[in-house]
Every structure is written in structure tokens, then in C-alpha cells.
């Protein structure tokens, strides 16, 4: 079972590995890392010892890290040659997701700021 096997030139996303032990270990490592990252997220959000304005950014970073853990250990997205198509599709998806989210938040925040009214009044204007 090497990558010279024509059947292994591509693998679908989520396809398991070879041996039962290595598959199970992969999922257990993924679960452990995800549990740690989730725990740290809830701790960061609850504790008062961190610098307040940076907490939201830190939470987003932790969430992106946990998504990466899920992709690698649960969906088995790797950098190997058999995974090129899966990674390219993922990269395009991530590009569109970031364009939509950052573009919308950026433009809407600037439009609201340029309306020249107070945030409280804008809150009322956007109620419907």
C-alpha cells in the first residue's frame, strides 16, 4: 500500500487510514486537542486576568485553531499528494468565507460610522 497504487492517487475527504490503531489514535488525539482548545476558550472568556480588549481576538484565534484540528484529525485533510484536490477546494472555500465575512463587517461598520449619527441612534435605525 504505497502512493504508487493507482487507487490511492486521490482519497476522498474523511477517508480513514490503514490500521485500526492509527485511525483510533488519530481520532483520540483530535478529541483531546479539541477538548483542550474548547476548555481554554471558555476559560479565556471567563477569567479576569487577561487584557480585556484582546480577549475577543484571542477567542477567534482559538476557534480557528480548533477548526484546523477538526479538519486534520476528523476529516483527515493532509498536505499529501493524494489530498491535493480536497485542499484546493478547501482553500477556495476559505477564501470565499473570509471575503464574505470580513468584507461585510468592514463595509457595514464604515457605512454606519459615515452616517454621522450616534451609535445609539443607529441602533434604533437598524431595528427592522
Amino acid at each position: 500500500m504505497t502512493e504508487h497504487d493507482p487507487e490511492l492517487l486521490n482519497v476522498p475527504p474523511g477517508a480513514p487510514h490503514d490500521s485500526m490503531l492509527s485511525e483510533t489514535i488519530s481520532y483520540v488525539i483530535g478529541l483531546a486537542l479539541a477538548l483542550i482548545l474548547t476548555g481554554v476558550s471558555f476559560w479565556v472568556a471567563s477569567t479576569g486576568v487577561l487584557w480585556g480588549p484582546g480577549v475577543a481576538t484571542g477567542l477567534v484565534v482559538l476557534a480557528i485553531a480548533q477548526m484546523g484540528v477538526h479538519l486534520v484529525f476528523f476529516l483527515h485533510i493532509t498536505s499529501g499528494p493524494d489530498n491535493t484536490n480536497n485542499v484546493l477546494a478547501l482553500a477556495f472555500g476559505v477564501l470565499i468565507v473570509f471575503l464574505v465575512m470580513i468584507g461585510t463587517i468592514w463595509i457595514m461598520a464604515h457605512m454606519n460610522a459615515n452616517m454621522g449619527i450616534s451609535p445609539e441612534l443607529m441602533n434604533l435605525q437598524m431595528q427592522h
Partner: protein
Amino acid sequence: MTAGTEAPAIGLTHQGSEDTGLGHRGPESKSIVVPYGFWLFVLSDMVLFSALFASYATLVHATDGGPTTSQLFHRLLVAVETMALLVSSFVCGLAMIAAKRANMLWTQGWLLVTGFLGLIFISIELYEFATMIAEGAGPQRSAFLSAFFTLVGCHGAHVTCGLLWIGTMMAQIWTKGFQPHIMRRLLCLSVFWHALDIIWVAIFTIVYLIGTLP
């Protein structure tokens, strides 16, 4: 294709040749193409959710004098929901390992646990929604709550579909066995279920944790 004597594979080409993976080998087998197509669907589903996240982030402060995020959300409930969905995703992986070995008992057992944990998740979410609506914080109260119910409700609808799918797959494995087309469907189901957990990571971080920061 002479394997063994060639140089090791370099980059995207295999065995150092110009074989692009199409040529004389023909198209990929169905066991590759079907889950890949489903992977593209899952990614486009994430694009759909990104639009819902964007509208939520834009409208989160448009509360119209009604309840705000920190008044509505309870972190304990969210923590239980998160644990249920995360362990469910893990157990779904165990079910795939058992299914690959055509082990009927363990596959059905793990799928049952997967579905049960998903049911716990969706029950807590419905309880949260019912409590909010009873408090007068329904989707028509403010733009913020409309965006909230659309985003989280869309995820909950996906989980509900996933639960129905799990039940369907359990019945199909039971009656038809581990045939190739059943295994393809099972693989698509696991990709779907893992993807729902990835979207939930974004929801519990952006909506619940950042929404309840002091």
C-alpha cells in the same frame, strides 16, 4: 505504470512523471468522486453560513431596546451543547472505523451514540429557543434576534437533518450490509457531521462566548 524502479514522487506529479491523474488511467472511481462532490457541497454550505455570520455580526448591536446578548445567553448550557456535539463527532469517527471493518454491532452501536448525543444537543437548543421566545425575545423582537435565530436555527436544522440521515443509514446498513454504495453514503454522512461541529465551533465562539464577555 512501472512502479518500484522510478524516482520518488515529486510534488503534484506521481512517480516524477507528467501523469496528471487523468490520462490513460481514466476518471476516478465512484468511491472518490462521490465524497469529493459532497465535500464541495459542504464547503458551499460553509459559504452560506459565512453570509449568516456576516449579517449577525452587522446586526448584533441592533437590539431596538430589547434584550442584549449578555442578558440572554447562558454559558453552562452552551458548554454542555458543545461537549455533546464534540463527543458526537468523535464517536461518528469510531463508527466509521468499525464500518470499514464491516463490524455490524459496533457500527450500529457507535452510530446510535452519535445520534443520541446529537439529540441531546438539539434538545438543549430547542429548550433555549423556547425559553427565549417565552421571555418575549423571539425572532421578531429585534434585528439582532432575527439574525440570531436565523444563524443558530439554520445550524440546528442541519443537525436535525443529520439525525434523520443517521437513522436512515443505520436502517440501510442493517438491511443492505456494508456494500460499496452504502459505504459511500456513510462516508458522506461523517463528512457532514464533522462539518456541523466545525460550524458550531464558530457559533459558540462568536455568538455565545464573545457575546457574553464582561
